[in-house]
């Protein structure tokens, strides 16, 4: 049987205890927030890696990536014909449409797109939220190095393959087949 007023007193004790504890409030504009690793702030483009495969534009659920390109021929000494390469004309990401799902970064086979934790790019005009190739290239400077692998996680596929190869006994060397080596 609890004393009358016990609940009231407990409530008062809780608020008093909270009063004496230090608050964990971070006063944002004066103090930068501590963002976790792999935070998604803005997408950065490494133009030299892009081969204009269009996978990112295709896979984007919002269709917010706009790509234009043209083909250029390059003479390679010692080659039978000129080589062709795609050259990027236009690569825009419309951040007013982007939903920050990261599918474009995930699906790019050439590591041309990266996540950056920068989030302070609000604009007064909606049109300014369309970042063009140069702007996306500027964000590359803010991309952090990839965080270290989890110590307790499973080893990656490359590590597994290397370990397996090292564990195999070395194959015996067979003499080359008779005949002139080509």
């Amino acid at each position, binding site marked *: 049987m609890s004393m009358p007023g016990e609940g009231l007193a407990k409530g008062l004790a809780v*608020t008093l205890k*909270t*009063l004496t504890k230090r608050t*964990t409030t971070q006063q944002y504009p004066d103090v930068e927030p501590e963002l976790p690793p792999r935070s998604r702030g803005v997408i950065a483009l490494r133009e030299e890696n892009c081969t204009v495969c269009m996978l990112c534009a295709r896979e984007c659920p919002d269709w917010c990536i706009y790509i234009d390109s043209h083909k250029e021929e390059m003479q390679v000494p010692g080659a039978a014909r000129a080589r062709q390469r795609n050259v990027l004309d236009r690569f825009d990401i419309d951040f007013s449409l982007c939903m920050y799902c990261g599918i474009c970064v995930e699906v790019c086979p050439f590591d041309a797109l990266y996540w950056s934790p920068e989030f302070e790019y609000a604009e007064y005009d909606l049109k300014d939220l369309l970042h063009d190739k140069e702007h996306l290239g500027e964000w590359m400077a803010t991309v952090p190095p990839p965080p270290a692998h989890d110590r307790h996680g499973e080893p990656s596929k490359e590590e597994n393959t290397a370990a397996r190869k090292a564990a195999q006994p070395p194959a015996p060397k067979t003499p080359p087949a008779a005949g002139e080596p080509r």
Partner: protein
Amino acid sequence: MPLWLELAVRVGGVLVAFLVLPLLVGQTEHKVMAHMQGRLGPMYAGGYHGWAQLVADGIKFVQKEDVVPRDADRTVFRLAPVVALVPYLLALLVIPLGPGDLVGQPLDVGLFFVLAVVGVGVLAVLMSAWASANKYSLLGGLRGAAQLLGYELPLVLAAASVAMAAGTLSLPGIVQAWQPWWLIWQAPALVIFFIAGVAEIRRPPFDMPVADSELVAGYMTEYTGLRFAFLLLAEYVGIVVIAALTTVLFLGGWQGPFGDEYLGWLWTLLKVFAVAFVIIWMRVTFPRLREDQLQRLCWLVLVPVALGQLVLTAGVKVALG
């Protein structure tokens, strides 16, 4: 000192207290409530931990548009904040700050005067509620009237108990006659007076008339700008007045551990702020009382205990000779 100068100094001093103390209590409320909720409270206004927040609020309220609803009763609507504010100024005039002459006016019937004048605040609630031509205001005001009417009784009975103990209605006289063992003798009266006082100023958990999650702002809904600032000031002046009354009647006023003669005002102020802290603490901690719970507390708990305390006081007084 010529009479007019003395009067000017006294009234001027009370006016300064009337304007400054509620702001201090308000700023304390911002910061204490914030830290009790794990936040920081105002930090920017004035640069250092937001000390000028209420000054900024005052300026904000002054520059707002003055709106009187079309169907509102204009005269009554305009008068209500004034009627809410002036009684507290009058009450502060008779509350002693220190020993001897350190009081606005040492009235012989000071206690009676204060209780009568604080009761006028009920009228302000009803005026603002009815004149607002708004059903939420009206509901808030009627709840307020029932609450304030009811809680006047335990307030007066508890005050009467300590007046009986001191043998005088004069507030400086009560502080003079107070002794520390009265804390035990008058303990029920202290608790009743404090609870009834908090209910009189409509502070949570007794803020049924305002009930800001249910009634918008209750009887204050239609008020904007300077008038709203006056009603808000009235709330904080009410805290100061009730805290001061509790201090002066039950906690020994200017009596302190040492140096009453020249440090009496300091003890009074410290006690007033301690009581104000408890009022703020109660606001942060307790949920609102429903009207029926509120009335039940008043009539079925506070009034009988207050009557019992009166009997106890009379008995001990007679026994002491």
